[in-house]
């Protein structure tokens, strides 16, 4: 029934481990669930009432049938009619109530989960970039999908099943005790056996099923990866090994699954046998009770009917246990995300920043990531509006950290960053970022049309504006090769663009957003020769009239920059123009002078 979801094999498996069983933690969980249910009090109440009524109605038929048997054997036609009428009434009530119960439980449950998803998503959106850098994407995706689904099972089925089965068990027990306490007690001797067998089975079986899930996950992951890498696989003639490996993985899964086959093959017939024993007790001991005039045949018939009401709920309830554990574990993980606080927040008195001129200053900026050594040591920087700044230096020198600080993805540990003289910590993040254009090294595409991807930063842009931006950076040149031009679906499940094309889309996106300050992580050469010229033109177009910070790799970009910052281990070691720096014969000359000579 499930459809294949890209990346689903990456999402971590569900765990049933619950760390904290203290009352405080339990209270927190209940409060969280209560908060979710509170807006839907009326529906929840209707759901609960109809559940109770449906359960009660479902308890009636065996009793009525038993009574009917007695009425028939005693020849009481009149009471038989009455019983049949009651039987039909109970059936109708049960049917209507179970309709209402299913509908309202489903509605409330799904609504609560949708609310939870929205809340969680908006919370995730508020969290700072730091949070994302500390948590693996797969884990976070799992919170929004897997964990919410785990909770779904509890909210929509789990609670219902818990109440229904507990009541059925209790109700049937009471009815049986009232009908014939002797026979009831005699029949219940199978219960300890059933409980023990069920407990052992659940324990073993949940362990085995975890193994099955894990090994199946390995099968799926292997398959997904081998299909994605099929070209490499064939180019290196690894077919035979790959097949052998896949067989192994499949075999491991089969072996794990075989465990569950054996467990099921022993448990379910054992339960069946216990139920046969219960039948034997009812018929045997019950028969003698009838002989002795202590009970009636109808009671035996009712007992036979109710014995199923004992076996099913015990099994269902035990099954619920693992659903319950999984859901609690999921809830804990979701609550943990909800408890995380964004590190960068708008100050209460933050103001919206007006249209920027783009004068950027760093005053003695020090910075360290939360758990780590200082990565920037006292950066001083003055960038007049309209300057193109190239950041150069080795990996880890602090180039991208500086870029992230300008966008205020982080706040400096000490010192201050100002734009047009305004400290970034006093402005609203949104008003700042709306005037920034950030182009990452690998153009990221969202699922959606090409046009929507270009308009990402300004969804309200008109068609003409989108086309103009696309034309300005050269997207229009390759768009004719796309199946549906600007309406072509992109992203994971859509059309794949080449690296260079993605880059151009990212440029168009930035251009359309019309930023005052541009931050660009330059990709060196993910582009074709033909496209390269377009990129350069596009870049020139993009840089025009804006302050720009470029994490630069290409010599041409660096050379054309007004200001080059050479970074080494978190310090600006040199700054100036290309010619100045070459003339100085320092770090820059060593990095790029050599390269220029080497090209020959």
């Amino acid at each position, binding site marked *: 029934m499930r459809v294949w979801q890209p990346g689903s094999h*990456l999402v971590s498996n569900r765990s049933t481990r619950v760390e904290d069983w203290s009352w405080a933690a339990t209270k927190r969980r209940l409060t969280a669930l209560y908060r979710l249910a509170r807006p839907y009090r009326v529906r929840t109440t209707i759901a609960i009432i109809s559940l109770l009524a449906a359960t009660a109605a479902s308890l009636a038929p065996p009793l009525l049938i038993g009574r009917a048997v007695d009425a*028939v054997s005693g020849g009481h036609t009149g009471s038989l009619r009455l019983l049949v009428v009651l039987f039909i009434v109970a059936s109708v009530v049960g049917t209507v109530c179970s309709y209402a119960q299913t509908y309202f439980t489903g509605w409330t449950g799904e609504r609560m989960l949708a609310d939870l998803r929205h809340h969680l*998503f908006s919370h995730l959106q508020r969290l700072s*970039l730091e949070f994302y850098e500390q948590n693996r*994407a797969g884990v976070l995706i799992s919170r*929004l999908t897997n964990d919410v689904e785990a909770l779904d099972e509890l909210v929509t089925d789990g609670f219902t099943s818990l109440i229904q089965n507990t009541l059925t068990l209790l109700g049937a027990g009471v009815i049986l005790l009232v009908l014939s306490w002797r026979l009831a007690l005699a029949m219940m001797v199978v219960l300890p056996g059933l409980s023990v067998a069920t407990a052992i089975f659940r324990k073993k079986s949940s362990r085995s099923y975890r193994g099955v899930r894990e090994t199946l996950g390995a099968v799926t992951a292997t398959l997904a990866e081998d299909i994605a890498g099929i070209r490499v696989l064939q180019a290196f003639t690894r077919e035979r090994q790959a097949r052998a490996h896949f067989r192994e993985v499949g075999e491991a899964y089969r072996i794990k699954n075989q465990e569950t086959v054996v467990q099921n093959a022993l448990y379910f017939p054992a339960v069946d046998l216990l139920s046969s024993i219960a039948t034997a007790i009812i018929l045997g001991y019950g028969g003698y009770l009838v002989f002795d005039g202590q009970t009636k045949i109808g009671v035996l018939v009712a007992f036979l009917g109710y014995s199923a009401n004992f076996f099913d709920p015990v099994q269902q309830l035990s099954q619920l246990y693992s659903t319950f554990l999984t859901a609690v574990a999921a809830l804990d993980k979701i609550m943990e995300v909800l408890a995380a606080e964004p590190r960068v927040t708008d100050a209460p008195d933050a103001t919206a920043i007006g249209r920027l001129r783009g004068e950027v200053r760093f005053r003695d900026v020090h910075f360290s990531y939360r758990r780590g050594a200082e990565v920037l040591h006292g950066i001083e920087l003055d960038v007049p509006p309209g300057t193109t700044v190239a950041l150069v230096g080795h990996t880890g020198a602090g180039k991208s950290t500086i870029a992230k600080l300008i966008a205020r993805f982080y706040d400096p540990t000490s010192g201050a960053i100002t734009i047009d003289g305004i400290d970034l910590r006093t402005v609203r993040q949104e008003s700042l970022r709306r005037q920034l254009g950030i182009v990452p090294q690998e153009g*990221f595409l969202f699922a959606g049309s090409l046009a929507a991807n270009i308009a990402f930063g300004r969804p309200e842009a008109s068609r003409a504006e989108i086309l103009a931006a696309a034309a300005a950076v050269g997207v229009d040149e390759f768009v004719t090769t796309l199946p549906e031009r600007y309406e072509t679906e992109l992203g994971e499940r859509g059309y794949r663009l080449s690296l260079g094309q993605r880059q151009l889309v990212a440029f168009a996106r930035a251009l359309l957003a019309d930023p005052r300050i541009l931050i660009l992580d330059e990709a060196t*050469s993910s582009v074709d020769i033909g496209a390269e010229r377009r990129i350069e033109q596009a870049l020139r177009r993009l840089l025009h009239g804006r302050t720009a910070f470029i994490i630069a790799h290409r010599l041409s970009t660096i050379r054309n920059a007004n200001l080059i910052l050479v970074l080494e281990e978190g310090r600006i070691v040199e700054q100036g123009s290309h010619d100045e720096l070459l003339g100085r014969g320092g770090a820059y000359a060593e990095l790029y002078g050599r390269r220029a000579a080497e*090209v020959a």
Partner: protein
Amino acid sequence: MSPEGETPRNSATFWRLLRFLAPYRTSLAVSVVLALVSQSGSLAFPWLTGDVVSAIRDHRRNALPALIGVVLAVGATKALATIGRRLISGRQALGVELDLRNVLYAKFVRLSFGYFDRHQTGQLMSRATVDLQSVRFFLGYGLIFFFQHVFTVFGVGVLLFVISWKLALISLAFSPVLVAVAYRYSSVSHPVLRDVQQKMADVATVAEENIVGVHVVKSFAQEQAQQDKFEHRSEILFSRSLRANRQRAFYVPLLAFMPLLGQAAVLLVGGEMVRRGSLSLAHFVSFNLYLSMVVFPLRMLGMWIGEGQRATASGERIFQVIDEPEEITSRPAARTLPAGPGTVRFERVSFGYDPLLPVLHEIDLELTAGKIVALIGLTGSGKTTLASLIPRFYDVQKGSVKIDGADVREVTLESLRREIGVIAQDPFLFSASVRDNLVFGAAEATDVEVREAARLAQADEFVARLPEGYDTVIGERGVTLSGGQRQRLAIARALLVDPRILILDDATASVDAATESRIRLGLLEAMRGRTTVIIAHRLSTIALADEIVVLEHGRVAARGGHDELVGTSQVYREIYEHGSFDQPGRREVA
């Protein structure tokens, strides 16, 4: 309606699916017998209950122990038969699943590049997971259950008619309706549930891209828009789930209600018959018990018919993959690639991914053994296509590609590809350790060789800095590498194969200037003595080549050395002029 479905084609698929059970004939037969035994046991219970009731009515106290003994014996036999049946059929189900999956996988690795160009990964994964699941569930468990239920329904029907055909007719009147409603529920709910799954996937997609692309969302301050998008998808999911919920709320109680009406009829009419003496009390009791026994199988019959149809449809899709012609395979008489220096000849080669839209036109080209050839040209000129004909990723439509005199179609694929190292522009690495990735094509390589290859590709330094060096797991589940690092590992991986011919789609992407020049030096050393084809995007790479081939619209527009081409080729000059923008030192030296 039968599980074979309506059309003969479906029924052919169904029989073909059954063939997967052929190796398990014996165990299938044994489990059918055991299922018969245990279902007969179940059928005996209401009858025995009736006997007990009549014993009680007639005050035959002595008959009771024997009857109870029979109940226990039947219960025990049933349990044993079920244990045997479950063990055997469970084993068989897992076997069928394994077989199916292996067959499909083996097919996947034999399919050619063209097939994978035409099909998306997600689509193929769907075949191997969702469709396979549905087929194996039906073949593994479904058939046995189906058989069991049919047997129970049939057995109960016969017994009821034996007891009282009138009462049987009255009480079973609901059963065709029940089967029909169950079938209807199964068929209407399936698309809806599938739709719910699809919408769940949509929500997951938005969640995923917002988490993976969080920097873009934040950069453009689009949090609110994304929130709206997410909530929109999530609301759709909500409304679809509600639709599924409404179906469930309607059908499940309805399915439970219908048999209750039958039961009420039995109570009323049967009770009357007992009063008039045309039915015994014992039979009245048995009748009631039989009726409740048949409800579940009837519902399941309806469901299994639906399952069978879906399994057949899934089987159809799986067979589509299995029946796909393997375009590129070693010919039966293929020999191994003869030894040689690595001369590559294209003889009047024409090729198009779609034969109607040729990409290459009558290419005549010889690549000298041991030399470096740079293929250049604008996007769409056919550079990558031309290179991918050498390892026979595709077959030419006209002409031939020869390596050291042997047509690539005449030699075994394995011997051919073992002699060719391919480094793609955006190289794919597997979620495995760095070492496992490097020895991908050369499993027997020693650590010394691995290190040497990594050194040549300028990868040893950054690998040494990874948390566990060569044992670091990379890829989706491990350390994420930059494009430049992946590129270098791909170069090392290709070098370890020690190929005669090296194909490099040059994109020493995203590395800093110093590393880039070191990679070039490493490459020069690595290419020594091999015929190398570089699909060049930059002048710095072109500079490595002994010869340059300029492609234009699928034809060789010019070839020669740099000096020659600057004079003769307009296309080259254009590229060169433009490219030199990037390399200030180039012009003086050249």
